[in-house]
């Protein structure tokens, strides 16, 4: 019998083709835009986490506990005391990178300015920070290089080029004076904000400059899949039990960045909500019209012996089929565009790019192909349809055959 009810439901949908198409269209258009927007947002987060977080912060960071509140060299750690080998062997960990992050006054001629000084391991960090693509002048660092890399912005400020010298002065480990003259080996272009005021040194040279041999400020830990972050975090914490070291996720290290993502995601949610309201009103309008147009017929069907639950099954099947068609087409139509932009992200220019750079994002626009985004938004539409069906459910449950036929 259910088969016949479904056949009846299918035919009923097409009784009013225009209305059916309008309802489907409202779902398709709204879902298309919601999917496009949400996939773009999540792609941006993912892209920036991969490109910015993995290079400069790491998905996880190991520091001394005291470094969390006071980021000074005195709170640095001795490399040998951290069980790097064990951490590297944790499934999903792709790299453990020692860093020195501090700062110094950098000057030449009459110009001086405070800059972040980052000690890196050239053998692994050049690739991690994608420095090869960022070289504008000169060359990159080698393992025990004594030169430095500066940003294009700094080069413009100091009016220096490759081969010119810069004077560095700061505070080293435990009150030592950190001082040195370094030759500019390369000039890099950093699109994102913080790195544009950074100087890159080899780790060995940074340890020498800060008078902190065998010491680093933090280990950056990168992982294969961001979904494993919490699980890996737990495993690393287990390894650090009983030490003064602490492992923190990038979200803990840079809460502002996470908040930025969340604010952006919430604004997307608001727009999604508006689009879903359009879907909701579209479906609700269909339901109200459908009920009122066919109230008499419902009365007749009830009079001749169709139970209200069966009538409900038929009408809810109609709405479900309409919604599923809309959801299916919405997903189907959005996929090619999402796929194209996923494979070919667009590099932005002008004001849009500057705005993104100021927020610390790379100026690229692409879209994700996240299955959960497809699933959640499709389910949201189905949920809206289910909620708006409440009107039909109430009306049909309380349907009185005679009253319906009188009207």
């Amino acid at each position, binding site marked *: 019998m259910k088969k016949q009810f479904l056949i009846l439901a299918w*035919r009923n949908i097409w009784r009013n083709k225009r209305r059916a198409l309008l309802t489907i269209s409202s779902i398709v258009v709204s879902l298309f835009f919601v999917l496009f927007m949400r996939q773009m947002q999540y792609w941006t987060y993912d892209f920036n986490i991969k490109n910015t977080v993995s290079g400069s912060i790491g998905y996880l960071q190991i520091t001394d506990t005291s470094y969390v509140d006071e980021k000074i060299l005195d709170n640095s750690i001795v490399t040998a005391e951290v069980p790097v080998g064990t951490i590297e062997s944790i499934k999903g960990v792709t790299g453990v990178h020692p860093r020195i992050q501090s700062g110094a006054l950098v000057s030449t001629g009459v110009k001086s300015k405070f800059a972040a000084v980052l000690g890196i391991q050239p053998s692994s960090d050049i690739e991690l920070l994608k420095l090869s693509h960022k070289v504008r002048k000169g060359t990159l660092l080698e393992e025990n290089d004594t030169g430095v890399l500066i940003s294009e912005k700094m080069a413009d400020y100091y009016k220096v080029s490759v081969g010119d010298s810069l004077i560095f002065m700061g505070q080293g480990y435990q009150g030592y004076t950190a001082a040195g003259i370094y030759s500019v080996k390369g000039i890099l272009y950093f699109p994102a904000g913080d790195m544009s005021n950074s100087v890159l040194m080899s780790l060995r040279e940074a340890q020498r400059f800060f008078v902190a041999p065998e010491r680093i400020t933090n280990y950056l830990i990168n992982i294969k899949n961001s979904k494993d972050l919490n699980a890996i975090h737990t495993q690393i914490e287990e390894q650090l039990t009983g030490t003064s070291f602490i492992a923190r996720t990038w979200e803990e290290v840079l809460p502002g960045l996470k908040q930025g993502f969340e604010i952006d995601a919430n604004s997307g949610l608001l727009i999604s909500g508006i689009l879903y309201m359009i879907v909701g009103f579209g479906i609700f309008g269909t339901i109200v019209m459908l009920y009122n147009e066919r109230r008499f017929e419902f009365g007749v069907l009830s009079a001749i012996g169709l139970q209200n639950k069966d009538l409900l099954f038929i009408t809810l099947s109609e709405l479900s089929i309409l919604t599923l068609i809309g959801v299916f087409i919405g997903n189907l139509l959005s996929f090619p565009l999402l796929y194209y932009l996923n494979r070919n992200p667009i590099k932005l220019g002008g004001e849009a790019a500057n705005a993104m750079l100021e927020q610390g994002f790379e100026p690229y626009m692409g879209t994700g192909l996240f299955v959960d985004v497809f699933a959640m938004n499709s389910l949201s539409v189905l949920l809206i349809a289910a909620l708006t069906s409440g009107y039909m459910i109430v009306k049909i449950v309380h349907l009185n055959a005679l009253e319906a036929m009188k009207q």
Partner: protein
Amino acid sequence: MKTVIETNKLHKIFGKGELAVHALNDVSIQIKEGEFTALVGPSGSGKTTLLNLIGGLDQANEGTITLNSCDINTLKKKEMTEFRQKNIGFVFQAYNLIPVLSAYENAEFIMLLQGISEKIRKKRIYKLLKAVGLEGKENNKPGELSGGQQQRVAVVRALAAKPAYILADEPTANLDSKSTNDLLDLMYQLNQEEHMTFVFATHDQRVIDRAKRVIYLEDGKIIKDEIR
């Protein structure tokens, strides 16, 4: 003959207080199997109200209704719907076929609800469609049939599941003379051949003329019960 419809001191009041209308007032009738009965009276006399009550579509304020040996006052809404499905065939003034179903599918609908096998459904419906002169129109949708043809499909739908009796509310009101006569011939023939019980609520003199029993109502009361 078995009594299929029995009402005892029925009262039906619409509205409350000073606006209350006594639509049925102490109505007691007995209709036996195989009767061809017309409920007749002017507008507001209570014939449709009585038809609704004996169709299990409405409830009386007072009195009892026994349909096919069942006291319908004891039935819940769901049970009443099931009772209607199994015992009562309805023919409405405006045909009220399902527009998206073919003539065959419309006729089949109640049998499907009853879970009757396809073989039996097919046999019975083709026989009835042939009997009402709709052979070859099985696949036509209601919109592709004339008013008379649609009403004949409605009759087939009402008859197909072999109900205890058929209630017809002004079945000829929207039909021309020829269609009316054809329909009445058909119903009369089914009454004669299959002993099907028919109860009409009607103004139509042509229906009244063909009825074997005519119950006259006025102001909610039976004023005359004529058996011919």
